């Protein structure tokens, strides 16, 4: 694809801008900023990845992975604004999902620890965990607001905060996992995932591309479940104080 062809694809964003303008969606500014950010961020990351892949240094790869986890945690934290300790919880939960699943793949020798394999796969895992945690926090915040009475009745019957919040936690984990489960069910039918398509476009045989994609699907499911589980059974504490009372100032 030459640069002119790429530039012409921007016309699709212009169509979206036109629809937004005519329908008074008020999304034009966000679309323009998003488009510019996508171009700048992807161009920059292209150079960074080329540099990191060439150097092939373990420490640098780990630093890149930690930066990815940190950025994902910052974004997820915004969805859980008001919950005590949510940034640390997000960071540790996403890291736990990544370490366990990546560790498993390395142990099974499905992947080898070089940046060109580990970084793209980790990016998908971290991104999916980030979306899952965002959903988890939003669901928990609205559940604790809407079902406050239920939690209080359970506390009054002698339930511990964890027991009183159990149903809310369970529902929130389910909600957080829906996008991953749905995409696992429809992969190959509704959507051809980016990694597989990318590998095929780059000349890799479809068989190998499919193997990688199956691995990624399994990895995403494991990572999202682990991150969601760790975060939910940690973050619910932020809804209670040390006297096992529901806190008032959540928004």
């Amino acid at each position, binding site marked *: 694809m030459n640069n002119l062809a790429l530039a012409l694809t921007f016309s699709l964003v212009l169509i979206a801008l036109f629809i937004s303008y005519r329908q008074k969606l008020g999304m034009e500014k966000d679309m323009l900023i998003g488009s510019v950010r996508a171009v700048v961020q992807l161009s920059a990351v292209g150079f960074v990845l080329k540099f990191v892949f060439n150097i092939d240094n373990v420490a640098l790869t780990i630093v890149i992975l930690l930066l990815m986890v940190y950025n994902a945690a910052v974004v997820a934290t915004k969805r859980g604004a008001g919950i005590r300790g949510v940034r640390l919880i997000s960071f540790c939960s996403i890291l736990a999902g990544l370490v366990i699943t990546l560790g498993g793949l390395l142990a099974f020798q499905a992947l080898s620890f070089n940046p060109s394999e580990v970084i793209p796969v980790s990016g998908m895992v971290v991104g999916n965990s980030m979306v899952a945690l965002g959903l988890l926090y939003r669901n928990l915040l609205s559940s604790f607001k809407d079902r406050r*009475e*239920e939690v*209080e*009745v*359970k*506390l*009054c*019957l*002698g*339930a*511990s905060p964890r*027991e009183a919040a159990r*149903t809310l936690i369970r529902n929130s984990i389910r909600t957080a996992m829906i996008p991953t489960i749905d995409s696992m069910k429809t992969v190959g039918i509704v959507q051809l995932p980016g990694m597989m398509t990318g590998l095929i476009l780059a000349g890799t045989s479809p068989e190998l591309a499919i193997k990688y994609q199956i691995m990624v699907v399994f990895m995403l499911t494991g990572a999202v479940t682990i991150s969601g589980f760790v975060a939910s059974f940690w973050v619910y504490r932020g809804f209670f104080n040390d*006297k*096992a*009372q529901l806190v*008032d*100032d959540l928004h």
Partner: protein
Amino acid sequence: MAIFLFDQVSLKINDQPILSSISFSSEQGEIIGLAGPSGSGKTSLLRMMNLMRSPTHGSILYKNRDLAQFDPVKLRREVGYVMQKPYLFDGTVQDNLEYAYRVWGQTPNQPEILNYLERVNLSAPILKKTKSELSGGEQQRVALVRSLLAKPQVLLLDEVTASLDEANTLLLEEMIRSEWAAKSLTVFFISHQSEQLLRLASIVLYVKQGKLEYCGPKEDFFRQQGDLNDE
């Protein structure tokens, strides 16, 4: 023995004063009626007794020990609380009545459950019903039974008969009175009805604008204040 001793207790919620300088003591086995206009802080007063709220100032002693030193989860097993609006969980009445047993790791005692249900004029078939199949009165009776199955030593009742008809109100009162007589239960209940305070309470606490204006025998209270229903 004083079961609760409030000493200069004040409460603020979001910097808004709710209760100020509340002092009183109550003996084990008393039935105490809390009266006062809506919004005067009665519910907050009850909620401090089972540590659903903590006082901003002052101290509360429970069985001669600082309430703040108690494990709140264990305390709430001793000090039960029933809300004005009965909140039944999703699932059947049986699930609701088994809740306290399950969270405490006990096996549900079915004869005990049936016995309590019979005492509030409910029978076994109701166990399979869900909350949407129950009337308001039935829900409130189930909520009371659910709290009593936890075998509290103190029962806090927040206007539990407010939305009930007379027959259901008298039924619940009878249940409360029989539990009190059988188990030396201490009962605190909020009520706006003079008749109910006269029927149930031995002591009346009258709270107005966050201050305790009266604490003493019901007879003296009604001699001084007249009929609450006129407020």
